[in-house]
Structure formats: structure tokens, C-alpha cells
């Protein structure tokens, strides 16, 4: 019985490999590697968009979470695979910082963007019992004697980079405490185990509405519709404009060198899927904004992000290697 099954499986395998050599893309199921664990922002995005894309492509996308090393594990797997569009990376902004943090020699330059799907904003959040109620008061308090405890998701993560921006502009130093991500960090701030945390809008919006967290400012140039009462940072400190727009994003990527027609098929499918009502609803509810950049537009988006983030991390002392080593231009 087992032997017969084994033969059957191997025959099927051979057939599927042989079949893949010809015919138009996509001819067989596609592997989708998710950079982060189940239940996280990247995972939610992947699972929300994929069923819609599958319908358009007429092929299954087999999703797998391959978390680890800030997403470098999944990124490496995609780059080690073939550039045929059958292995996709569902990822967030992290590969932009791998090189300066010395996590991996890879970066977005080793990938071809299929689509930059969703972007988010970052809100500076505080525990409701902290004495500062506005961004101004917060900056004053941060300059004071006692260091404010800021929760982060580790060196190089978004909260860390936001902290670096504040350091650059106001000269404020924080006592960083590292948590396992936005969620656990937000929990710690609510429980009073840290005072502030720059959090993705998607993580924080419900807590702010419920009064569990205090939103001090959004790191954008315009107020966001989800939080009309929280000021945009440039209303108070226009000097932040030099770093903006900046924030988390989720996208889909293929290995560099994927044939142009394959890439175009994929980009079209994702663009179309993102127009689905259910995806729009998902983006709205999760506190994000649709971006939808593909092709060269997506490439320059990634380059700008890389330049802003890596130089901020470097100037804040968190980088192991200088961005100059990798010819990452300094932001203007």
C-alpha cells in the first residue's frame, strides 16, 4: 500500500516538473513565503490578498510562514530559488536594513517588486497615565532628567527608527526596551511596563480609540482619517518633513531577474485583486492605506525607504556597517 502510494507520488512529481518547462505562466502552483509568523501584519495581508489573486491567476498559491532573523530566512530562500515567478516573497520593509544591520548581504536590490501593496503610518503612542498629553510636552519631558522608557521591536525596527528621528531632531535620548514586536510592545505600554512606543497605525488605532493608549502625533504630513484628533507631526515640528513619507509597508516580491512578462502577469493580478471590495475593506480595517506601486515606481519607493531608514539607523548608532559601504545615497 505504502509502496504504491510512493510510486504514485513520484510519478506525479516527475509529471509536474516536466509540465512546468513549457506553457504560459502560471502553469503550476506558486509558493508564497511569508517573512513573518502567523497572525502578524504581513501574514494577515498575505492571507487576505492571496485567495483573490488565486482566482485571477487560476492557480493556487501555497502560503508558508518562514519567519526568523527579521525575515532574512524567507528572503534568502526566495533569492536562492529560481527567478521564474514560482516562488514569491510576502514581506515587509525589513530587507531595506539587512545590510547595515549585518543580518544578511541581501536587500531589495536582490528582488523584483511585484507590488508595494499596503503602507501604514506610525503613531507615537503613550500610556494614558503618563503626564504628557501632547507631542510638545512629550519632547520637553524627554529632554528632562529621567529617561523615558521607549518600547521597540529591536534595533532597526520601525519604532527604533522613529526614535532615531526624534534623536536627530530634538536630541532626545530614550531608555529602549526591546519586545517581540508591535503587539507585545503595545501590550507592555498599556500595562505601564514602558512609557511610549511609536506604533504602526494598524496596531494602535483600536487602542487609541478605546483610550488604552494616548496618540501624541502621527508621523505623516497630513492627519490620517482613522484618527482625526491626533495631529500630524509636521503640524508641530515641520522639520520631520525631510524623512516623510516613511512607514511600514507590505509587498510581494520575486527574485531579481524574473522574466518581464511573468512579473507583469503577477503585478496585474495583484493590482486587480487589490481592487476587490473585500481587500479594500481589509485595508481600511487594518489601519493601512493602499499603495499599489509596481515596476519602476515600486523600485524608487524601495530606494527612498532604504536611504532614509539606513542613514537614520546609522546616525543613531544602531548600524554595524555604514550605508556608504553599500553605496546607499544619503537622503536629501
Amino acid at each position, binding site marked *: 500500500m505504502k509502496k504504491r502510494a510512493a510510486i504514485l507520488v513520484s510519478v506525479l512529481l516527475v509529471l509536474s516538473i516536466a509540465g512546468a518547462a513549457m506553457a504560459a505562466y502560471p502553469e503550476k502552483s506558486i509558493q508564497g513565503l511569508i517573512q513573518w509568523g*502567523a*497572525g502578524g501584519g504581513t501574514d494577515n495581508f498575505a492571507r*487576505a490578498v492571496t485567495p483573490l489573486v488565486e482566482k485571477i491567476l487560476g492557480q493556487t498559491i501555497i502560503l508558508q510562514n518562514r519567519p526568523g532573523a527579521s525575515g532574512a530566512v524567507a528572503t534568502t530562500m526566495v533569492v536562492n530559488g529560481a527567478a521564474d515567478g514560482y516562488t514569491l516573497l510576502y514581506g515587509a520593509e525589513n530587507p531595506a536594513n539587512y545590510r547595515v544591520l549585518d543580518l544578511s548581504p541581501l536587500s531589495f536590490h536582490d528582488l523584483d517588486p511585484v507590488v508595494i501593496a499596503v503602507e501604514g503610518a506610525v503613531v507615537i503612542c503613550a500610556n494614558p497615565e503618563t503626564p504628557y498629553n501632547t507631542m510638545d510636552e512629550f519632547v520637553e519631558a524627554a529632554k528632562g532628567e529621567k529617561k523615558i522608557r521607549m518600547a521597540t521591536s529591536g534595533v532597526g525596527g520601525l519604532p527604533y527608527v522613529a526614535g532615531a528621528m526624534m534623536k536627530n531632531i530634538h536630541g532626545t535620548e530614550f531608555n529602549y526596551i*526591546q519586545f517581540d514586536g508591535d503587539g*507585545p510592545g503595545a*501590550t507592555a505600554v498599556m500595562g*505601564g511596563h514602558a512609557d511610549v512606543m511609536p506604533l504602526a497605525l494598524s496596531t494602535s488605532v*483600536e487602542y487609541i480609540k478605546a483610550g488604552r493608549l494616548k496618540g501624541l502625533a502621527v508621523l505623516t504630513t497630513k492627519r490620517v482619517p482613522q484618527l482625526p484628533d491626533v495631529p500630524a507631526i509636521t503640524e508641530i515640528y515641520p522639520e520631520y518633513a525631510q524623512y516623510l513619507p516613511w512607514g511600514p509597508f507590505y509587498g510581494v516580491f520575486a527574485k531579481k531577474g524574473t522574466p518581464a512578462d511573468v512579473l507583469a502577469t503577477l503585478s496585474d493580478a495583484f493590482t486587480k485583486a487589490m481592487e476587490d471590495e473585500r481587500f479594500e475593506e481589509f485595508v481600511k480595517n487594518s489601519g493601512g492605506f493602499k499603495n499599489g506601486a509596481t515596476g519602476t515606481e515600486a523600485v524608487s519607493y524601495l530606494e527612498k525607504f532604504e536611504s532614509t531608514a539606513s542613514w537614520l539607523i546609522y546616525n543613531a548608532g544602531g548600524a554595524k556597517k555604514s550605508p556608504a559601504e553599500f553605496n546607499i545615497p544619503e537622503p536629501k
Partner: protein
Amino acid sequence: MEQSFQYFLIPFLSWEMMLLIWAGVFAGIWVGAIPGLSVTMAASLLISFTFSWDLNHALALICGVFVGGVYGGSITAILLNIPGAPAAIATGIEGYPLAQLGEAGKAIGLCTTVSVFASFVGILALSVAAPVIANFSLKFSPRDFFLLAVMGILLIGSIGGGDPVKGVAAGAVGVLLSMVGMDPSTGELRYTFGNIHLMAGISFVTAMIGLFGVSEALTQFRNAGKKSPKQNLDRIIPSWATFVKYLPLSIRSSLLGVFIGALPGTGGDVAALLAYDQAKRTVRNPSRPFGTGAYEGIVAPETANKGAIGGAFIPMLTLGIPGDAVTAIIIGALYIHGLKPGPMLMIETPHLFWMIVSCLSIASVALMVLGLVSVKPFAKIIEIPKEIIMPVVIILSVIGTYAIQNSVVDIFYMIGFGILGYFMRLYGYATGPMVLGLILGPMLDANYRRAMQGAENQLLPFLEGFVTNPISLFLTLSIVFLVFSQTKVYRRWRGFE
């Protein structure tokens, strides 16, 4: 109130939901029983699978799988000494000796009954005290999680087998292995030798499958040809008197489970181990000495890990904070289905809360029925000759490991741990402490450093926290007591010796 009741009735009025819950429990029992196939994995697969479904139906199925899966892990622990999930490790310590004595049926029967009871304790806590418990769980600081982990490490004394030195050695190696990968706080790479696979760390589930599954199978090959113990299957359902006898322990352990489950990030595995330890220290006259088949040692971890199910939903439904890995995935499912999990969830969508309470209740009833019906066929598994069942175990271990993240490297790890475990057993080292070290190592490491960072890396303020914060003080005193209770002075005073 009336409205809550109406919401509670939603699953009862839909035959599809009823069917899905029962099917979920049934599938969950099998998923849980196979080492490596976990509830977390099943839940995340189901989310893609149920994307186009109505949310209520999807949740009904996931709740069923959750309840069934936690139970299933214990069955193989009792029958084959191979826990299907970390939450069942403690159960195997007492359950397997019982199966060897021919009492597997009685053990599973008792396990089923107390499991259902504990599951209802969890549901009750969820429905009457959720906001209170959730707010309290937020008060747990990194320092307190550190103390909980220390408490867990002390368990090595309980599950370490005969020789304490060997137990500590195995535990220490486990902690050491848990350090491999990225430093949780700075991202520095530790013991990775530039290897990308080591960068992702060593998963404790992979290690567990090897150390329990494969190493048990290899060990059993030494007994090939020997006749398996005859199982007595006359009285499966425990008598009322038995149930009442274990009631105080059941209540205590299930409440502990509810609470540990409600703490963000800790779930049934930690709860079950702490409950087992607690039972071992406090039960005066166990049915047999602990380690040789004490029924109390099954009741405590089983009630704790089932209580933790309701517990894990507490912060999830009230605050949008996952209590464990499965509820983290359910939060994702809610997002995908267009809901906004968070503190407003209960206010904006109150039906969801009561519907989940109801799904869990139905799942618990289904567990009672399906669990008791399958005791006899399950118990027969032991009577299958070892040379047939153990290769099956090895095959399932390989499949289960691969299924975690479709990684061939994990299979090599798993087999490596299996061989290591075989030699550990041969030389009298228990494998439990090593898995414990792998589970608790990261919790110790990350939380100690967070607590230290919170005190600006100053020793004095750091130590001050242990006595000035009421929760930390309580936990510190508990640890002192745990250690003290092992001394001769105390044991003589309490009449244990």
C-alpha cells in the same frame, strides 16, 4: 442579558455550525495526537481555507479544532509516551506508566472527564470575569514573566527523573540550545556560524518531536517482540466518587490554567507544567507515588491546559491581545474577515463574544462524547506490536516536522534530537528537562533583559522591583517557598517524611 443569551444561541440554531464544531473536535483530536501537527498549524491553515466562508462558520470550526487538539496531544502521551504537543509533556510522565500497568483506558477516561470539566471552568471564567482578568494580566511586567520562567526551570526537579544532576545537565543544554539564533534584543547573531538556518534558531517543537517521538521509538525497538501489557477496559468512565475526590485539585489546576492562559504569550504548555509541579508538591497521598502512575499527575496538567483555552480567549476578546499562539491566529482571522479586534470588539460586535463562548461550550460537550467513545479504539493502539507501531511513529514524526514549516532542515534537526534522546535515555538522562530548557530559555533571556533595561541597567533598582511590586513579590515568595518546600526541615514538618 437577554441579548447575550440570544447571541449564545446562534450556534445552536444553525446545524452547519453544530456540525462544524463536532467535525472540528474530531479532527482536532487527531491533529493533536500526531506529534508535530499542532493546533496552531491547523488554525493557520484553516484561515486560508475558510476565507470565503461566513465568519461564524470559520470560528466554529477553529474553536472545535482548538478544544479537540489540546486533548488529542495527551492521548499519545499516555499511550505511547509521545506527547502530541508541549502542553501534554507532563501528562505523559504519569500517563505512560499507567498504560504499562494496563490502565490506559481508565487514565484516558479520567483525562477526558476532567478535561471537559476544566474546559467549562475556562469558559465560565471567560464569560463572567474576562475584563477583570484581562486587566490584571496586563499588570504582569517583564520581571514577572522572568519569575514565571524561573518557576518553570525549577520543574526540572519534577520531571528530571531520578538523578537531579542529570536533570539539570539536560535542562542546561536545552537552555543553551535555545540561545542559538538572533539575540532577541539587539539582533546580534549567537552560535550561528554564519549559517542562515541556524539564524532562525532551533524550534522547540522540532526538538520535542525528536526527543520524545523518535527517541521513544528507538528505545522501544529494544523491546521488540515483547508482549504489550493487556489493557483493562471495563471501567472507563470514572465513578462519581473518583471525580469528587479529584475535584479540589481539578478546580485549583484549571484556575491556574485560566490565569496562565490569559497572560499574553504564555499558554497551555507552561500552565500544564506548573500545574503538574504544583500537584506533585501539594498532594499528600497520591494514588501511586508520582512518577509511577499517579492519577493526580494526569488530572493537574490536563485541567490546566484545558482551562488555558478559555483563558487564552480572555485578553483576545476583551483587548485584542492574544493569550497564546492559537488566539494570535484567530485575531488575524478576524482582521481578514473585516472585523477590528481590539478593546472595542466586545462593544461593537458583542455577538462575537457570546458566540465564541457558545462554540467552546458545544466543543467541550463534543469532546466528552467523542473522547469517551474513542477510548477503546485508542487503547487498542498499545496492543499493536511495537515493531509495527514504532515505525509508524517515526514516519509521522518526519511528516509532522516537515509540516511545521515545510523545511527539510527541520527533519535533520528532528532526527538528530531523536538520536541524542535515545542515548540520553540509555544513560539515564530524562529528555523532558531539555525540552523545558528550550521552551523557557527564550522567556528567561528576553524578559530578564527587558526587566534590566526597564531599570536602566542598574542592579539596585532592578532588585528593588522584586519586593516593591506586589505581583513580583508574590512570585518571588512563591519561588522561595518552592525551594524551601524541598528541604528536609519543611518535609518533616508537613509530615511527608
